[in-house]
């Protein structure tokens, strides 16, 4: 039953991918609608089968294709895989629903058919990665996913920003694949098999090497700082639904990878956990601090994804630490917290990306300083974005809070960890985690305030209209899911069969509602009902102007100053004079810009060194026939000597 459903959904996704390709020369709406309908239908099937396995808790193994013994395209759908399949299904169906409306407003005529095709291929690849039962097919589909997402990022290929973003993304994603391949090869050397086999817990250096390679590979793909730089480039460059898919789902596939290898292959050491925890805490804090400074709405969401992936890694790190100190109960809580946060993040982040896509579509700009006042012209979009902002700021009773609370509980209960040194490490990470969650509230107050509240700060923003209904249904489903998963968090865990020490959010939600109703009732009977719409305190100005409002930049200024050690700036002055003694000033130019620390001190030196190396190597290729003959001669001689020596 489950196998048939799975294969059926694969076929539908494949059909949705191939059909727009063969009709690529026709610019017809129904082709694209058909293609996205395929995504939606396949996602519904996948959602159904993943719920079935999640609730029953059994796993299904099957081989799709086996060309040679020892290598097969085999799949396993167990609880972990079906959980991530569920994430893919929910987000892809909502994104596809939104995409059907969005794509008709994109420019690019027949190129849009290719966009549909690649989207389906991308979803298909992610499904196959998650269901893979051996490392080699995992890697193959991982590459397919990387390729498909590269084409999606490059959709607006004629723009310079996109080209830069695309190349950056391609290099980083291939680097990630390279490390994963290294890890898989090392695992093959150790165990002699491509299956996800549990290794014996001997702490051999090869196992450590395999872990480090896989950790690096997955961290690059997940956007862990300092390998995060591709996210803030790729997300603003790609169409919003694509960003929603990449940030909402693809980053989670990297999380899936690391969790799968930690659970099924390795017996983790304590210091691995500390490594993952440290990487997660650093990404979380720095991610949100950079997000506060960002004024491109999609760039801000990209940095916030880095932050949330950091939070998920904190949970995974705690899981490893607690497993290694043999505290299985706490380990389960942290892992559940991390996985639940992965689900929640994919819901609210795709919601935020989709609604901000609507805002960008309505205003024609990505700069939040040129928005404002949209809550009156786009009431539904603003309400949906608001739900997303509440969730991501981890406010009760929404889902972002429920998962962060699980991780908080794991931290607070870490009393039982024996080693005092680890206790101190845990408390420091706890403080950083708390800082992250408070700063993300500040970040989304700023985002919602600048985009939707007060007066419009540009003419485009003043002229914005609500988006068509097709672009509202998808986000609305996601928003409803955010609320339901938050309010019924405890009940959901009980149904799935885990006893977690979560408070009953339903009760809290009801209490909140009850208190609000009581207050309203009390006011209704006691207070005055008069309401006047009039100018309030305007600081003495005759009429209020948008230019006197608090801008997004102004909002984050205090935090800019407090964290000025992190936001380093670089000042540049250039002066040109008429005379040689520099007395008569002709013209000059000065700029202060934010120092891109990681780009200037990490990425660029590495890029420069590899360019230098490439230049050295290219000297061998001088195009002269004599030289090449000489190389061949040397090689043959070396081979003869080598064979004569050893054979």
């Amino acid at each position, binding site marked *: 039953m489950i196998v048939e459903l799975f294969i059926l959904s694969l076929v539908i996704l494949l059909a949705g991918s191939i059909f727009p390709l063969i009709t690529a020369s026709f610019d017809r709406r129904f082709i694209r609608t058909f293609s996205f309908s395929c995504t939606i239908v396949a996602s519904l099937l996948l959602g159904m089968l993943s719920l079935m396995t999640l609730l029953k808790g059994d796993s299904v193994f099957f081989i799709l294709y086996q060309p040679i013994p020892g290598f097969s395209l085999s799949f396993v759908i167990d609880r972990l895989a079906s959980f991530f399949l569920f994430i893919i299904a929910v987000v892809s169906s909502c994104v596809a629903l939104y995409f059907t409306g969005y794509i008709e407003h994109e420019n690019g005529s027949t190129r849009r058919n290719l966009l549909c095709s690649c989207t389906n291929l991308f979803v298909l690849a992610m499904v196959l990665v998650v269901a893979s039962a051996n490392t080699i097919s995992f890697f193959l589909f991982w590459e397919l996913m990387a390729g498909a997402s590269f084409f999606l990022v490059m959709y607006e290929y004629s723009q310079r920003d996109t080209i830069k973003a695309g190349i950056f993304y391609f290099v980083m994603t291939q680097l990630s694949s390279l490390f994963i391949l290294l890890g898989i090869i090392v695992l093959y050397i150790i165990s002699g098999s491509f299956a996800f086999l549990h290794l014996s817990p001997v702490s051999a250096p090869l196992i450590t090497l395999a872990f480090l390679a896989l950790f690096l590979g997955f961290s690059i793909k997940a956007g862990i700082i300092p390998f995060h730089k591709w996210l803030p480039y790729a997300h603003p460059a790609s169409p919003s639904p694509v960003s929603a898919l990449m940030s909402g789902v693809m980053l989670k596939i990297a999380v899936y990878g690391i969790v799968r290898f930690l659970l099924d292959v390795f017996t983790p050491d304590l210091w691995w956990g500390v490594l993952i925890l440290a990487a997660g805490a650093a990404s979380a804090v720095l991610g949100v601090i950079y997000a506060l400074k960002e004024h491109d709405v999609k760039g801000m969401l990209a940095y916030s994804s880095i932050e949330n992936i950091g939070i998920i890694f904190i949970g995974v790190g705690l899981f490893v630490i607690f497993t290694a100190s043999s505290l299985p109960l706490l380990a389960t809580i942290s892992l559940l917290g991390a996985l639940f946060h992965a689900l929640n993040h994919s819901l609210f982040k795709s919601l935020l990306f989709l609604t901000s896509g609507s805002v960008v579509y309505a205003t024609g700009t990505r700069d939040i300083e040129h928005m404002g006042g949209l809550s009156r012209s786009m009431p539904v979009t603003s309400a949906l974005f608001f739900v997303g902002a509440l969730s991501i700021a981890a406010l009760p009773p929404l889902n972002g809070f429920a998962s962060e609370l699980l991780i908080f509980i794991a931290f607070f209960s870490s009393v039982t960890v024996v080693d005092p040194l680890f206790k101190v490490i845990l408390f420091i990470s706890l403080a950083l985690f708390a800082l992250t969650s408070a700063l993300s509230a500040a970040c989304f107050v700023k985002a919602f305030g600048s985009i939707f509240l007060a007066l419009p700060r540009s003419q485009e923003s003043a002229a914005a209209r609500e988006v068509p209904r097709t672009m509202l249904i998808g986000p609305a489903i996601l928003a409803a899911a955010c609320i339901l998963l938050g309010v019924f968090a405890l009940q959901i865990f009980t149904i799935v069969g885990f006893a977690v020490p979560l408070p009953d959010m339903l009760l809290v939600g009801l209490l909140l509602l009850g208190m609000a109703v009581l207050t309203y009732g009390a006011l209704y009977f006691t207070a005055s009902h008069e309401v006047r*719409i009039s100018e309030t305190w305007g600081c003495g100005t005759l009429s209020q102007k948008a230019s006197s409002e608090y801008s997004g930049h102004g909002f*984050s200024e205090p935090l800019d100053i407090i964290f000025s050690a992190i936001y380093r700036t670089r000042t540049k002055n250039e002066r040109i004079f008429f005379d040689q003694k520099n007395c008569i000033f002709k013209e000059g130019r000065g700029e202060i810009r934010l120092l891109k620390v990681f780009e200037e001190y990490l990425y660029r030196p590495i890029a420069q060194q590899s360019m230098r190396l490439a230049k050295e190597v290219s000297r061998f290729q001088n195009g002269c026939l004599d030289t090449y003959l000489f190389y061949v001669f040397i090689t043959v001689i070396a081979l003869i000597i080598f064979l004569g020596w050893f054979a």
Partner: protein
Amino acid sequence: MNFDFVLYLVINTAIILAISPLFVSLIKKVKAWTQGRSGPSVFQTYFTLIKLLKKEVIYSPNSSRIMRVTPLVTLAAILVAALFVPLVFVPEPIGGIGNIILFLYLLALARFFMALAGLDAGSCFGGMGSSREMSISSIIEPTTIIVFAALAFVFKSLNIFDMFFLTAASGSPATPTLILIGISLFIILIVETSRIPVDNPETHLELTMIHEGMILEQSGRNLALMELSSAVKMTVLMALLINLIVPFGIATTLTFAGILIAVIAFMIKCSVLAGVIGLFESSMAKKRFFQLPSLFAMAFFFSTLIIIIEVFS
């Protein structure tokens, strides 16, 4: 949900609504005395609230629905948070009510709405208040969490109800660790309720204000709700401090006499604490905004020290 618990919900909410405005004016009175003035009556806050309820509400034409729902959501969130800190009677916790992290995030929910309402009308004062409030609340958060983690560490529980049970059972005086935590909690109380040296609750049109700037656009019954919720928030945080450090008098079983004694004991303790806060505020000048991070760093250092002492002892 048993009968005791429902009764607890009613009693706790009724008491906190009834008494919290008193302590706001009490602090004002103490401050007035130290300045040599006679000051307003101790019931002045009640009179102000009643007056505000009778006034009309004025909304700016630029404001959205956020402005309209904020007072309701704020008061509701703070009243639910108040249920997490038993004032006079500690029942068995039900459904995770009393979870200390949830308590903190309910306060954050109120703050989130308040900050958005500050930005809503588009006036500079509101924006300034929101920006500063969110900045301050972000950088105090690590300290708050560390203090709460220390509490959870000492009492081996995440639930405020369980903590109060333990303190009530052991009776006074509190252990040295708890007194150290109490000092940190006092700093958090000062920061969270926007008092000197962090913020000045008295000023209205000064560039130094934070919380008052944020609610500047509120008027009439909405302003009454905002004032009431900040009074309730202050009393709840005071109750948390009091019932942890000097728990005597608090009732753990539901009897009329017990509750009566507990209310009287709580009123006395809370009045003393209000006096301390008034004296503390009078003895300080407001700090410059950008000196606050170093103050918070100090608080953070102390609370981390407590934890390390606890861990290694």
